[in-house]
């Protein structure tokens, strides 16, 4: 009984082959580096710390959304409601700060401290995410349709709560103990703006969750073969539901950050954010079919989109061309995804 492994004669894969493979998998990172080099050499202002700070702050918004979106897309789903959830969460936060929670039954108005406000807004976001998850798992609604529906519902809810208006001046009142909301969007820790820290924390937590925990493994398994996952004892419904809740949670964080940055909450905040988030995820190499990809890629994808937008502005490229170029980049990314699939399809064997 010789060890059977000796039987396989290994053919050393050619060195460049392996490197090519690695570059291909990290293509978002490669694209990012290339873009940075191009813009840095064309425009000296690009690498100034002022520009970089603004750039990363912008990226943070999309990156946090993309982290949540990744969990949904990895299961083979999609979440179109993230922008609306951001809007709703901002309105919930703004409303709680400015007008408090009105409880007509008791004839009282309750005001919360800022950290509770943020928590409640995040809960609202996760709640809409849970609704998405229930529609998809319990009622078998296609994710595209389910989240399209909640996209409208959440937006409508935001408009209803604020009566279509903006909650301005979210300063809070010292006598109500709800001041300090501005810190989240404009404060900084160790010279770095809080939103950037939030991106780092959400990104690290997401990457950790996806790659190191049983939950993350199950997310990937569902995207790879839902039935086989189910038969392996994965509670498919529950895991998917959690995925949508994570996405809703991240969206709410984004909504609150934006409200804090502007110190006002608009019901229209976050329109079309879902498209940017999906673009970042796809650019990052996560397959829309599910099962392949990861959180790190999505963050790199968000940076690619952000750097592209920022650099093109610095170079004075017309706004219309900027839109065209962004579109081209997204399509190229999907083409690469296709190539990857064909590549692995060729490797399929029996």
């Amino acid at each position, binding site marked *: 009984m010789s060890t*059977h492994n000796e039987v396989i004669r290994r053919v050393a894969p050619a060195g460049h082959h392996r490197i090519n493979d690695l570059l291909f998998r990290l293509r978002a990172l490669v694209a990012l580096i290339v873009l940075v080099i191009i813009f840095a050499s064309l425009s000296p202002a690009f690498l100034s710390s002022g520009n970089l700070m603004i750039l990363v702050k912008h990226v943070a918004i999309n990156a946090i959304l993309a982290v949540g979106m990744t969990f949904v897309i990895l299961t083979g789903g999609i979440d179109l409601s993230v922008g609306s959830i951001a809007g709703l969460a901002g309105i919930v936060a703004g409303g709680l700060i400015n007008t408090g929670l009105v409880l007509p039954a008791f004839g009282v108005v309750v005001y919360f401290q800022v950290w509770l406000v943020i928590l409640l807004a995040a809960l609202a976001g996760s709640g809409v995410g849970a609704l998405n998850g229930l529609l998809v798992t319990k009622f078998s609604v296609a994710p595209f349709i389910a989240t399209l529906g909640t996209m409208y519902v959440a937006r409508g809810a935001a408009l209803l709560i604020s009566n279509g208006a903006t909650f301005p001046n979210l300063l809070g009142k010292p006598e109500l103990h709800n001041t300090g909301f501005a810190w989240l969007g404009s404060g900084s820790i160790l010279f770095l703006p809080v939103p950037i820290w939030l991106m780092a924390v959400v990104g690290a937590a997401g990457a950790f969750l996806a790659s190191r925990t049983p939950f993350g493994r199950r997310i990937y398994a569902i995207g790879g*073969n839902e039935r086989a996952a189910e038969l392996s004892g994965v509670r498919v419904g529950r895991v998917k539901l959690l995925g949508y809740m994570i996405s809703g949670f991240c969206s709410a964080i984004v909504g609150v950050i934006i409200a804090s940055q502007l110190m006002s909450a608009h019901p229209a905040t976050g329109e079309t954010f879902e498209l940017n988030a999906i673009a970042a995820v796809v650019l990052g190499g996560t397959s829309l079919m599910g099962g392949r990809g990861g959180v790190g890629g999505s963050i790199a994808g968000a940076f690619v989109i952000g750097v592209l937008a920022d650099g093109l502005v610095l170079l004075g490229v017309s706004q219309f061309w900027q839109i065209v170029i962004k579109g081209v980049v997204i399509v190229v990314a999907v083409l690469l995804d296709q190539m990857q699939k064909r590549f692995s399809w*060729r*490797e399929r064997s029996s």
Partner: protein
Amino acid sequence: MSEAPALLRACQVTKHYPGTLALDSVDFEVRGGEVHVLIGENGAGKSTLVKLLAGVEQPTQGYLEFNGRAIRLESTRDAAVAGIGMIYQELSLFPNLSVVENIFMACERTRGGVIDRKAEEQIARGLMKRLEQDIDVHTLVGDLPLGCQQIVEICRALARNVRVLLMDEPTSALSPSEIEVLFRVIRELKATGVGIVYISHKLEELMEIGDRVTVLRDGRLVESAAIADVDVGWIIDRMSGRRWAPPAEHAECAGQAEVLRVEHVHVPGRVHDVSLTLCAGELVGVYGLMGAGRTELFEVLAGSRAAAGGRILLGGSRMEHLSVRERIAQGLALVPEDRQAAGLIPTFSLGRNMTLASLEAHARHGLLSRAEEDASASRLIAQLRIKTTGPAQPITSLSGGNQQKAVISKYLLTKPRVLLMDEPSRGVDVGARAEIFEIARRLASEGVAILFASSDLHEVLSLADRVLVMARGRLSASFARSELSEQNLMAAACAKAESLHVNAQ
């Protein structure tokens, strides 16, 4: 007959995959009107060779000849044009389309540019008749049991009037009666001059249908010979040198604790009032023809199919209302029949597939431990002799039989008390089959009860301590080891509905 010229020939073909040399300068040919049988261990390169012949893959070195002329097959389309058809080991059907639509996929019969449904249906029904099946041609393929899907796959090749037919384990999900029909069809094709390449791990089949045999081992051609000149021993010697000796000891239920009790399980139209018990340490086979309800029964036991009634007790506690996950946690696991649809995560590596059902056991403080996962995977790779470059190899790049072993490993890692296995040796070579059942036997001696379904009479006869026979959704008979015989099993499997009433206690 040896005068006949080669119809399709592979000359000195070599195939490299990243990390593996799957074929090494192999010469192979098939003549018109012969069945050339290809055999070898799991991962020997059989599928790779026929994929080269079918244009699915291209050789790294070497070339193909068709009718004496060099030919390049860039795609399956090229092969189809040349008249080369293939039945894939891993079925390549569209579950969302009907039987007819599948049969005529990419070779639709048209009339003025529009699909001629009438003609297609007629041909499809004709094919079903030829294969003696009464499968409704309008059913969605996804709703058919695996065996019927295999029939559809065969019809697909037959509908294309091929000159060379490559069959990669066409009978792995068929039972003896269907196989007989298929063999009749193969003989008819042979008579019309079609050249057939036939891969199977069932040696008796090869001896019956083959004219010539070629043995592959580790990607190299070992020997070719006329079937008339060889016997089963010759083949096994050339495959690996290892012999398949079924384990001798058999356990008796007497005195052992009962671990599984199934009472009056009922699934409308599929399983009727089935009751059975399993004792610790027993290895029980369930035999039956295609559509007998074995898969459905197993699925009910594992919790992946709802039953209309009945009780399932594992070690005395009720299971009916538990989910698949909870049953696995309690120690009741099922190795599903269809490894592609229900067993494997195609995007995962071998190692990740293996640990999927036991992630908690491989986690510390809620974190997956790569070291522990690798340790478990490596242990089972060695135990089941999975041919691979390591746990990180993508599962889809393993050979079919080795993929099957991966699925079995996944459920072994859940430490079951009762292990249900639906056709566990599907696509597994003789040596590996022995290993799987050796492991099953060892588990049994450690007190695990094993219930396995098989369409292979010899497997059931030689391995089971006790055999239950199912026919049309009912248990039609139960045989102790001493009462086992081929005739008994066949008779019970074909039993008429009225005469069925057995409680297998």
